[in-house]
């Protein structure tokens, strides 16, 4: 019995030691390394993560914490003052700029770091080769008329005619951009689409569902899905999403990706952004399947 008592006492002592131990640790960590909180867009999170990792090798004294969640959460963190860099796949809204001014006394700094083309994915067995923005709008918009593959002029061997629409959750930057660029600013999505919470999820579901169509960043392309060419209007030439077509603005659904920083961000943040905009950072964009900035 005495032994058990000793064991339990030791356990309690160890517990309290650990608690004080980690307390102290928290203080130390802050002193030794500079950290950059990088939060935001799901579209950019893979890229941001790859940057963070590569920069960790180039500059070991800086630790970069990357979190996804979406452009909204990045901007919110910027406004709350809990991040150093907000990743956003959309511009700040006027209201958000005002809030930032109220918080920091100046506008947050905006850096364009690259582009993302939204690709339209279908199953490889789908004979569809091109689609127009109007058709996409009729397919996804509330009140839109297209719901069957035959209405797009194709039949998929061995799959039902009804189109399985794959979309994103309603506050992701990708959802917002798709709504703005394809459906029209004031329109809403039709109910009944699968609203998945990750860019990879969309591609994955399309790859296992012959009658599905979905939109996601071109960086998520795999060889198990087919990318459809998109035309601005029916009759105009359909464009494949590539670096050239994005940069010369012929591909209709591509958007810039931004870093936003508070106006009072530290020098180590500026140095990191310089690195991202430089040769190494930009090379990484292409490697990850996104579109780098125009060569200067």
């Amino acid at each position: 019995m005495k032994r058990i008592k000793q064991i339990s006492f030791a356990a309690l002592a160890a517990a309290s030691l650990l608690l004080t131990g980690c307390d102290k640790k928290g203080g130390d960590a802050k002193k030794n390394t500079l950290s950059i909180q990088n939060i935001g867009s799901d579209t950019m999170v893979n890229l941001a993560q790859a940057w963070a990792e590569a920069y960790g090798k180039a500059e070991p004294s800086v630790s970069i914490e990357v979190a996804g969640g979406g452009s909204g959460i990045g901007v919110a963190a910027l406004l709350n003052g809990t991040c150093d860099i907000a990743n956003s796949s959309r511009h700040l809204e006027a209201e958000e700029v005002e809030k930032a001014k109220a918080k920091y006394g100046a506008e947050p700094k905006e850096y364009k770091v690259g582009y993302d083309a939204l690709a339209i994915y279908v199953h490889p067995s789908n004979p569809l080769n091109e689609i127009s923005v109007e058709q996409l709008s009729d397919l996804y918009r509330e009140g839109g008329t297209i719901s069957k593959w035959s209405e797009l002029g194709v039949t998929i061997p061995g799959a039902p005619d009804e189109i399985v629409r794959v979309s994103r959750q309603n506050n992701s930057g990708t959802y917002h951009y798709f709504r703005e660029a394809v459906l029209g600013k004031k329109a809403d999505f039709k109910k009944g689409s699968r609203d998945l919470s990750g860019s990879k999820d969309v591609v994955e579901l399309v790859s296992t569902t012959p009658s599905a169509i979905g939109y996601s960043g071109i960086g998520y392309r795999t060889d198990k899905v087919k990318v459809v060419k998109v035309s601005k209007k029916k009759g105009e030439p359909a464009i494949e999403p590539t670096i050239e077509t994005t940069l010369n603005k012929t591909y209709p659904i591509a958007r810039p990706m931004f870093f936003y920083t508070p106006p009072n961000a530290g020098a180590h943040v500026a140095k990191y952004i310089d690195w991202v905009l430089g040769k190494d950072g930009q090379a990484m964009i292409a490697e990850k399947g996104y579109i780098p900035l125009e060569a200067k």
Partner: protein
Amino acid sequence: MRAKRPGYAVFAEKGIEWIIRLCGISAIIFVFGIFFFVFREGGPILWEKGTDFRLGDFFTSTDWYPTSMENKRYGILLLIIGTFTVTGLSILIAVPFAIGGAIFLSEFCTGKVKEWLKIIIELLAAIPSIVWGFIGITVINPLIQSWFDVPVGLNVLNASIILALMAMPIMVSIGEDALKAVPDNYREAAVALGATRWQMIFRVLLPAGKNGLLAAVLLGVGRAVGETMGVLMATGHSLNNPYVKLDGSFNPMWMFESCRTLTATIASELGETSVGSPHYRVLFLIGIVLLTITFIINLTADLVVKGIRKQK
């Protein structure tokens, strides 16, 4: 003669006893804290001016467009339908197996076999929900697609199977406790009257243990309603009424339609809303709805169990 204890020891003991009292009521503090803080974030939407939130539409509208630019609508009817559809079907799947399993464990099984079965069940109950969600996507999705020849395997059935698998171990172990609580002389009396084991189970054991079994089922329901990651990944997360076809008629294939639950909606959307926005507050309000539903279920289960204790 009692030795006098030093003053500091008496003092320390009093202190410890007060800490114990404080910890004792911590459960109450936490329960009220949960209500308070969730309501603190979600409640203001009820009286804040200048939002598109209407309490009347909240429960009755099928339009969930919290991020619309022009016409924000906060109706959670489809989410409620999704939650109850998935929960209901999962309980239908789980109950026969769980009660059968509980009967087997308590009536037919002895010694080592019983011990090992109970250990396995306990281990299975511990598998985290994120793993079940992963199973839903990678294992059950292709199985449903190929067995039932449907376009998407992420649907009501998939989520229900996962919830059933998750809830079954708990229901079995609580159900077994309930059957164990039926006094042995009931069984002896039935067998002495010449009843077969079969008759004994259906005529004596199940009626006698029905409250306990009901409590087991209710706890399963509570777990299924509150489950998040598993259903987020397995339902297909689609704003959709599974019972209605595009043309408005009843859909007999509702099991193979995607739907969306209350829990999954919060999990998928909370991360990106800015703190204090109407969308953020409405998500917390959904949290209160969920809290209320599970409280009612748990209280009922608790009363049912109390009922058994009183009978004895």
